[in-house]
């Protein structure tokens, strides 16, 4: 077993992600078979989950860039809102890709305010973030009433053209769909997933996904990325080596705003097709949750966002599907419990055993999950991670600290 451990440490990050992904599909597949909830792994479900996870993932990625530079960005929500408005405006006035560009810029403008306040004036990060959220709502509503008539307008007209949708593997589309309909354990579910990922997928999604390996490359393989991360870990050490701490923080926050803006854009172009006041719906905060869940790493963040997006998609499913999640959870807990037992962590194993029992009990004694709580699974999960896994979390060491040259 030791050899397994050393073997694992040599597997590159993307390889590990594939393993986790397969594991996830296996769990869902098992749950599907056990409960008969076919929709759990249907193509539509996956598609919806992917689309719902994009705004969360982008917001979370924005949070990551900012916090890796040591600046907490609670204002993601406001920056996302700006992204939704400017994205809609651009799309209506000029065209979909202009909308994307303007939306990104809109988010960046919000970030500029945050940068000036925190890096420029040394205002507390949380306070600045809260102010920006307030402003974001007010500004977008104001701009709406000004642009699209009516002092109490709350939404924009529909955007005439949307961003192009692509078929990435056109020749595999039909055979995979055929495979998916056969209900075979794991194979069919995997096929459904692949179809959902590659067919009729919006270009925005492709861009969003591509930003993750790009982020990883920039932050972990380039000098700029190293300096940015060092500023979030130990700005004094970075300063003593000649790194321009202020510049790195500004960079982190501005990219953060741009990504949040893109997240807002995705909300508009993937879902509503227009601007609606309040459509961010707390996703900025869920993005932060995904970032924490992912331990401030792009891979983990993507996994967390996908998980949260999947949970989000349960809202529009029939009861049976969401209910089956309990069985999926039970399977995960069983696995975790066995792993704990193998590592001789008996307390942990016991906890997981109890959790498994609770899930199964809950499943057997109810018809469905409480609908009202489903949207809040991400938050509950994050809270549990914070409470139980706080030691394994590695927040950038100087995150949230106000830094002035030469000490306070």
């Amino acid at each position, binding site marked *: 077993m030791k050899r397994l451990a050393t073997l694992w440490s040599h597997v590159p990050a993307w390889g590990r992600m594939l393993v986790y992904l397969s594991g996830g599909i296996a769990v869902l597949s098992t749950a599907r078979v056990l409960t008969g909830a076919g929709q759990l792994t249907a193509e539509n479900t996956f598609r919806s989950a992917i689309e719902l996870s994009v705004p969360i993932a982008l917001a979370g990625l924005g949070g990551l860039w900012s916090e890796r530079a040591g600046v907490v960005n609670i204002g993601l929500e406001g920056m996302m809102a700006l992204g939704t408005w400017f994205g809609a405006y651009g799309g209506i006035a000029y065209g979909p890709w202009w909308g994307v560009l303007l939306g990104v810029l809109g988010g960046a403008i919000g970030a500029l305010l945050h940068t000036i306040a925190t890096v420029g004036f040394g205002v507390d990060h949380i306070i600045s973030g809260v102010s920006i959220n307030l402003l974001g709502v007010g500004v977008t509503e104001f701009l709406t009433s000004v642009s699209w008539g009516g002092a109490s307008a709350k939404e924009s007209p529909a955007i005439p053209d949307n961003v192009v949708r692509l078929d990435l593997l056109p020749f595999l589309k039909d055979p995979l769909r055929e495979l998916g309909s056969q209900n075979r354990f794991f194979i069919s579910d995997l096929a459904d997933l692949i179809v959902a990922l590659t067919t009729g997928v919006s270009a925005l999604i492709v861009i969003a996904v591509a930003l993750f390996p790009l982020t990883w490359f920039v932050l972990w*393989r*380039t*000098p*700029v990325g*190293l*300096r940015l*991360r*060092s500023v979030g*870990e*130990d700005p*004094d*050490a*970075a300063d*003593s*080596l*000649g*790194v321009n701490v202020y510049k790195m923080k500004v960079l982190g926050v501005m990219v953060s705003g741009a990504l949040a803006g893109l997240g807002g854009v995705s909300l508009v172009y993937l879902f509503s097709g227009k601007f609606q006041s309040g459509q961010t719906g707390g996703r900025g905060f869920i993005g932060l949750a995904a970032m924490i869940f992912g331990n401030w790493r792009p891979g983990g963040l993507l996994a967390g966002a996908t998980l949260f997006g999947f949970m989000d998609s349960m809202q529009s499913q029939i009861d049976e599907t969401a209910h089956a999640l309990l069985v999926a959870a039970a399977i995960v807990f069983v696995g975790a419990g066995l792993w704990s037992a193998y590592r001789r962590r008996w307390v942990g194993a016991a906890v997981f055993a109890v959790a498994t029992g609770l899930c199964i009990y809950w499943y057997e004694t109810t018809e469905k999950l409480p609908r009202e709580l489903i949207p809040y699974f991400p938050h509950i999960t994050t809270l549990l991670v914070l409470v139980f896994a706080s030691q394994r979390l*590695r927040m*950038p*060491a100087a995150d949230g600290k106000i830094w002035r040259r030469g000490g306070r």
Partner: protein
Amino acid sequence: MPEPPATATPPAVELRNIVKRFPGVIANRDVNLHVEHATIHAIVGENGAGKSTLMKILYGMQRPDEGTIEVNGAPVSFKSPTEAIEVGIGMVHQHFMLADNLTVLENVVLGYEPRKRFPRQFQVDTAAARARIAEIGARYGLPVDPDALVEGLGVGERQRVEILKVLYRGATILILDEPTAVLVPQEVDELFANLAELKREGITILFISHKLDEVLSVADDITVIRAGTTVATRRPDEVTAHQLAELMVGSELPTPETRESTVTDTVELEVDGVTIERPGQRPALDGVSFSVRRGEIVGIAGVEGNGQTELIAAIMGLARTSAGTITYDGHDITTWSTRRRREAGIGYIPEDRHRHGLLLDAPLWENQILGHQSQEPNAHGPWIDREGARDRTTEIVERFDVRTPSIDVDAHALSGGNQQKLIVGRELMAEPTFMIAAHPTRGVDVGAQAAIWDQLRDARTAGLATLLISADLEELIGLSDTLLVIFEGRIVAQLDPATATPEQLGSYMTGATQGAPA
């Protein structure tokens, strides 16, 4: 100062007549330093003697007001550390500047990253970095694992990374600031072996320390700094530790005034075998035992950083002890909370009044409450008694001569001396039976200093048991009935202040004499 013989290689560093002033104080005056190429040159002195300022000048963090600096024979003037680095000077700080969550490699190359060739010049050339680190590591005997997270490294290993950091940038002159402060004996030996290796490879090393035995064993030349000036340079083979100590401390010591002893037989505070462990490092306190009696002032002398802060924390209940007991007034208070200890009658004059003793944005009368907020006259049940607190504050201002327009003034508006007088008054008027006075007259003008000394003496006469911790020998000799010396977390000597000589004191304080615990 004897002129060294002329050599073919120019001296690595030559400082002439350096002067550095700060508002209100002259940190360095008439400093002359001559460091030969490829030697280990130690700079010794007490805390506050001006060593740090001098090193900051050499490293480019401060600019001298007068004087010249020559590096490798060429005159230089640094505007920033970057310029010093370019000339080949590398500073290894006492408090390591390493990011825990980054790997050794990342910490070493930060800000100086090697890049791959076009068209991939955005990427860090990790392979090249790794090769160079391995090369430096092999050449100078500094083995490190480049992929290890700094967080998991021990103190000795971290120091090696810091040294590697400066060597990576091409440093040929290394400045080490108190490098053995937190090392255990084996790590000290490893470090010295590394330094010898570095010297063989032509690196010049400046070594700041106050530990004379170490300095004598590893240095080629030793320069003594006292009160901002370089007083002497010696070779280790022509001087003893005692002589060095004498040079560091100065050959005049104040004579204590003769007076009636007020020391009684009642032990008020007893510290027995108190130890505070630190994982991976030498314990901060190691089996410290002593007692303080009513009517006695026990003084503890020692160079800062040898456990005084931890001892205070242990007695005040601010730090947990790994072993040992503390008995106060007959009770075992080892597990008592800080509040309980204060309520029981322990007073505390902190060494850093801004950090531990005052609320700078609050008015004086609110500061008077600090530390005594659960007692009369400041509190009455759950309520704060404003009248009582204000009256007491007015009394303190009068009795202790605190110069202030009113008791409603914010604490930060007072001068350091008056702030300290307020604190002393606050503690003494609460009628403690045991008091910790840590550097009670630091940063205080001469007049206030004398007043505070008088107050402490009066309190002693009235029966107060006091533990006095100070770096001011005049203060220690003048006030103490018993004088202890702390070194590396242990009490290494118990002396009679009336008969202690400067070289004795200096030797114990710097570990030159390895005394048995008192």
